């Protein structure tokens, strides 16, 4: 494999990795705050894709507006999932909430199947993202560059939100100690709802870009990216935003490079992520950047 090929694969890896990073943020934020693996996150991403799709094809909105509307509606969906399904279980055992999350995930998938139909739909690529570029022999599509750029901007906004604003401070406080934070007069419910809104919005953005990269959308498209993004979050250290980003980029890179260097095991592509997950959990359960977990008796 020549240098040019390697560059090409690296570009692909970065663009896939930035998608994983965007979706992984949602997992890690929710887990950090209420210790719940939000199984439905990947399916929220799917809904975001469909909303953007219908915005362009049914309501004839320009793609920029359709995307923004889709992201907004998806974050509303995230909040309503929290209010309807997870909030009543906040004091219940964690496993009950996890089972509910699995139920919500399947509900979104099957509702998607009922409402949108099972046939895959072709996602329209905006012309600006659909240009083939030839940079000194490295052949890439323009979205390969745009996706990491957009993702990077969104991630910067997120870091600003979490570390420089009052809401972000509340989020970090709730993640550290929910009881004490509520004693300080912070409306915990609102903070968690905002977390869900932000996470779902990022998932929608990630989903739309996923659909740009793999322009076929179907109701089950969220499962695999969702699981892998979760793995990325665990890989980087769950609960840690930078960990989720790092894990996402590394996972995307590893996947692309393994398939590129060893094409004969391309069929095992989905197993690679799970193998990484199992290895991480067994040897370094806190992930790359996570803090050691305290055992609560």
């Amino acid at each position: 494999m020549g240098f040019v090929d390697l560059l090409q694969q690296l570009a692909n890896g970065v663009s896939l990795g930035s998608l994983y990073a965007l979706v992984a943020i949602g997992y890690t934020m929710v887990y950090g705050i209420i210790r719940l693996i939000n199984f439905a996150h990947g399916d929220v991403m799917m809904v975001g894709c469909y909303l953007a799709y219908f915005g362009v094809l049914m309501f004839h909105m320009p793609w920029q507006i359709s995307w923004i509307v889709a992201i907004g509606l998806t974050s509303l969906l995230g909040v309503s999932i929290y209010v309807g399904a997870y909030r009543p279980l906040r004091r219940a055992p964690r496993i009950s909430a996890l089972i509910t999350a699995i139920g919500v995930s399947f509900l979104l998938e099957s509702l998607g199947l009922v409402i949108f139909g099972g046939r895959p739909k072709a996602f329209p690529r905006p012309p600006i993202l659909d240009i083939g570029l030839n940079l000194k022999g490295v052949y890439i599509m323009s979205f390969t560059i745009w996706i990491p750029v957009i993702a990077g901007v969104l991630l910067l906004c997120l870091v600003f939100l979490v570390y420089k604003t009052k809401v972000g401070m509340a989020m970090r406080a709730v993640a550290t100690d929910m009881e004490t934070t509520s004693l300080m007069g912070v409306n915990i419910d609102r903070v968690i709802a905002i977390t869900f809104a932000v996470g779902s919005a990022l998932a929608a953005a990630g989903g739309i870009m996923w659909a740009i990269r793999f322009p076929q959308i179907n109701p089950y498209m969220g499962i695999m990216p969702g699981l892998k993004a979760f793995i990325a979050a665990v890989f980087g250290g769950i609960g840690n935003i930078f960990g989720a980003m790092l894990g996402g980029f590394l996972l995307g890179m590893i996947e692309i490079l393994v398939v590129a260097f060893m094409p004969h095991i391309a069929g095992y592509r989905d197993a690679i992520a799970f193998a990484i997950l199992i290895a991480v959990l067994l040897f370094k359960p806190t992930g790359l950047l996570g803090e050691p977990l305290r055992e609560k008796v």
Partner: protein
Amino acid sequence: MTFSEKKIIFKKRNKVRLILNLLLVGSIFLFLSKAEEILDPYTVRIINVSAVYMTMAMAYNLVNGVLGQFMLGPNAFIALGAYIVALLTMPVDNKAISYIIEPLIWPLNSICLPFLPSLMLAGVFGAIFAYLLGIPSFKLRGDYLAIVTLGFGEIIVVLANNLIFITNGSLGLKDIPRYVNLYWTCGWAILTYFFMRLLRSSSYGRAFEAIREDEIAAEAVGIDVKKHKLLALVISGFFLGIGGGLLASLLGTIDPKLFSFFFTFNLLIIIVLGGLGSFTGSVFASLVFVVLSELLRSVENPINIGSIHIPGIPGMRMVVFSVLLIFIMLYWQKGLMGRKELSWDFIINRIYPVKGVEDLGSSSKT
């Protein structure tokens, strides 16, 4: 009441219990012997499918409900059992035709075993796989354990898709000999039920429940937590493997898609509906689940009433089941049975009443 008097009464109670159990099992088998004549093939099939689900759900419930370790990978064991039975029972020349892309590898392509040994092997391999999987997995608990076992389940599906020289890839295996009838399916369901009930009331079962309630406290009173967790998983793996084998022989065709996370989801609904930790609940819930999904099948198919055409709604079944799951978790966490089991005590207490020890009696046998 003196100790020896109590002992005599308990012996008598156990005798009544044994007779009642034998009567129950006997009448079930009497029914089964006539069932194929009385009932139409469709109903027989529903009973068959429910009975296989019962075996699998009880095995899954042992780990999730009684041991309290949330595992999301029963599909891995079921797939293993199903493929083992399919590969061992298929006639040799049939195997030669089925494998189009790559031929089947050596020892498997020239053996063909009878059903019972194949089924037992499926169970044994399920147990071995459970042991191997349990050693690393049980270093984790809670939702991390859930995710790792889910990962193992997904890896099995990926392997089934890619190890074409063993599993025939996504084409799956067809024309698996159908040895299974009502005796096989219901027989295994009954066997599993009594085994699980006895296990639950044994010292092992008590240890499992202690681990569920509080792992640290259980360890403090001298329970070897690691050993008991592994034991429960190995038993569960055995019966899941058996269940998978029965399923393969019942359906006649298997492919990797059948054993995706979807299968785990079905079992999860069953054990949650029946009550996490109740084997009787799993039995009833399996029946409810299979019958309900057959009823909902009609919603998914188009219906023609005279000239009126109602188009089917594909996917409706899963909508109903996922709403059901969410509803149970939010408002009805006990499910049908909670952690209770059905027992004969309401009869036995009338014949040989024992004051103050009913609690002890109810948790021994059926």
